[in-house]
């Protein structure tokens, strides 16, 4: 077991070093290299916010939630709407300070995402726990319904973030290059969440229950623990974290109807690459996939191969699965 983990860690490190080397070779200057690294970590952290929920929900409940990307998209739309003039809920006159309004917008996104996650688990998914294929169809159907509802409320027009607020507009200088402080902020929030969730899983009673449930949910029940209540809690939490991800991504990526499917596919690539149900695999997989996308974006500049960044996560996934079918940190299920 220890040898396996060491091999996995070495494999992840080798992939990371390989990506950094390619980034360095492509960059031409330290400034460009810094931009690629910052962009990779930024995308990695956003991916983590989608994939962490996917991974924990799959590990504990054996449910691959295909609506997870939709919660990310909902988060982006709710945050955008709350922040800008003329939205569904116009907060600009009630909360004139854009910094405070952004905090409120993020909290609103978390609440909406968590509530919708709770409704999905309690109202629909719970009825289908013994039928895995139906769960897949259900969560896919929910993602389509969410997409149509979003189109109905906000139309199909993509929204670019135009509202100016503190951290969104500030920059810092490094290697003669201007770097966005907001990217650094998102990376910081992502790292904080990676550590906070890891501590929660390691140290708290609920974390012990979740880790035990990932191994053997039936035995957890036989010990007197209401696994269904834990399912609801974890599902709600996973959806709230995804909505949070969408909310903090919106100032950079805006809000559009393609966000959900794009992040869902990349999130699935992360979860499978890291090892289904492995939290540490998901955290490391997010960073690797984020870095791979950033390196591919850099490499695609000036070429006609514009699709390279979007297919890179899948290429990396195929490479890892060929060498290790259970993913980097996964166990055979």
């Amino acid at each position, binding site marked *: *077991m220890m040898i396996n983990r060491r091999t996995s860690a070495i494999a992840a490190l080798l992939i990371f070093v390989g990506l950094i080397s390619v980034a360095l070779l492509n960059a031409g200057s330290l400034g460009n290299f810094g931009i690629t690294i910052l962009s990779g970590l930024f995308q990695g952290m956003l991916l983590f916010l989608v994939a962490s929920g996917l991974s924990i929900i799959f590990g504990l409940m054996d449910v691959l939630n295909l609506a997870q990307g939709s919660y990310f998209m909902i988060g982006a739309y709710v945050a955008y709407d709350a922040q800008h003039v003329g939205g569904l809920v116009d907060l600009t006159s009630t909360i004139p300070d854009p910094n405070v309004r952004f905090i409120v917008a993020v909290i609103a996104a978390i609440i909406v995402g968590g509530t919708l996650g709770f409704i999905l688990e309690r109202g629909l998914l719970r009825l289908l726990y013994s039928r895995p294929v139906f769960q897949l169809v259900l969560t896919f159907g929910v993602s389509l319904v969410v997409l149509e509802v979003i189109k109905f409320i906000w139309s199909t027009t993509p929204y670019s973030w135009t509202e100016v607020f503190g951290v969104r507009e500030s920059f810092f200088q490094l290697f003669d290059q201007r770097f966005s402080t907001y990217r650094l902020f998102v990376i910081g929030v992502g790292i904080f969440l990676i550590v906070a969730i890891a501590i929660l899983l390691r140290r708290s*009673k609920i974390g*012990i*229950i979740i*880790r*035990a449930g*990932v*191994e*053997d949910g*039936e*035995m*957890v*029940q*036989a*010990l*007197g*623990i*209401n*696994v*269904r209540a834990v399912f609801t809690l974890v599902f709600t939490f996973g959806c709230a974290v995804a909505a949070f991800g969408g909310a903090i991504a919106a100032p950079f990526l805006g809000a559009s109807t393609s966000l959900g499917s794009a992040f869902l596919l990349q999130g699935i690539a992360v979860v499978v690459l890291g090892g289904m149900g492995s939290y540490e695999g998901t955290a490391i997989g997010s960073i690797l996939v984020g870095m791979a996308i950033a390196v591919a974006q850099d490499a695609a500049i000036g070429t006609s191969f514009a699709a390279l960044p979007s297919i890179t996560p899948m290429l990396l996934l195929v490479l890892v699965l060929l060498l290790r079918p259970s993913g980097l940190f996964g166990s055979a299920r």
Partner: protein
Amino acid sequence: MSNILEVCDIHTFIGQFHILEGVSVSVPTNGITVLLGRNGAGKTTTLRSIMGLTPPARGTVTFDGVMLNGKSPHAIARMGIGFVPEHRAIFKGLSVRENLQLAEHRGGDFARKSDFIFDLFPDLKRLIELPGGNLSGGQQQMLAVARALVPDNRLLLIDEPSEGLAPVIIEQMIAAIQRLATGSSVLLVEQNFRVAAKLAQQYVIIDEGRSAINGDISALVQDKALVQQYLGIGTS
């Protein structure tokens, strides 16, 4: 003698397979009752049916006068029934301490019971911070039984406690089960007839999904023909 558990004519299906076709078991308050039978007779399914893990489609299970049918496994466990499954089901990624803490029904259960548990299984004390997956088979079995002792369970369902263990560990396990049976009732599944005869006072033989015969184990030990007929083994 009053019975803490009454299983009455249960029928259990796994998928489309009719596994239990009429099993009845009475477990007296205090003492050890053993379920005997050949491989695949339905002993494990009987324990799982009592726990609600594979709920019976027909028949009744009553614990201390309360009907268990329709209750979820966690609710059944909370009523005071501890389950030690076949193959132990230790959480391999959790430490021994976390495995034990997970079984608490109330905060502090483990702290309150730790002296008793470590007295019963002294090895667990020095292994307390090790992951469950690093323990030997015998140590895992000790942990599985210890886990069922953390809350104040009044009935323990123990499935094949001697399976795959070295003889010296089996002797330790027998001593431990005898001790813990002084405070709880035990319903045991055991393939090793020598172990079963040493531990139990009552027996129920399950044959092809039906409870065939029951009584005092001392009488069964004497009845070599019966043992040969239902278990396919000699008693010597």
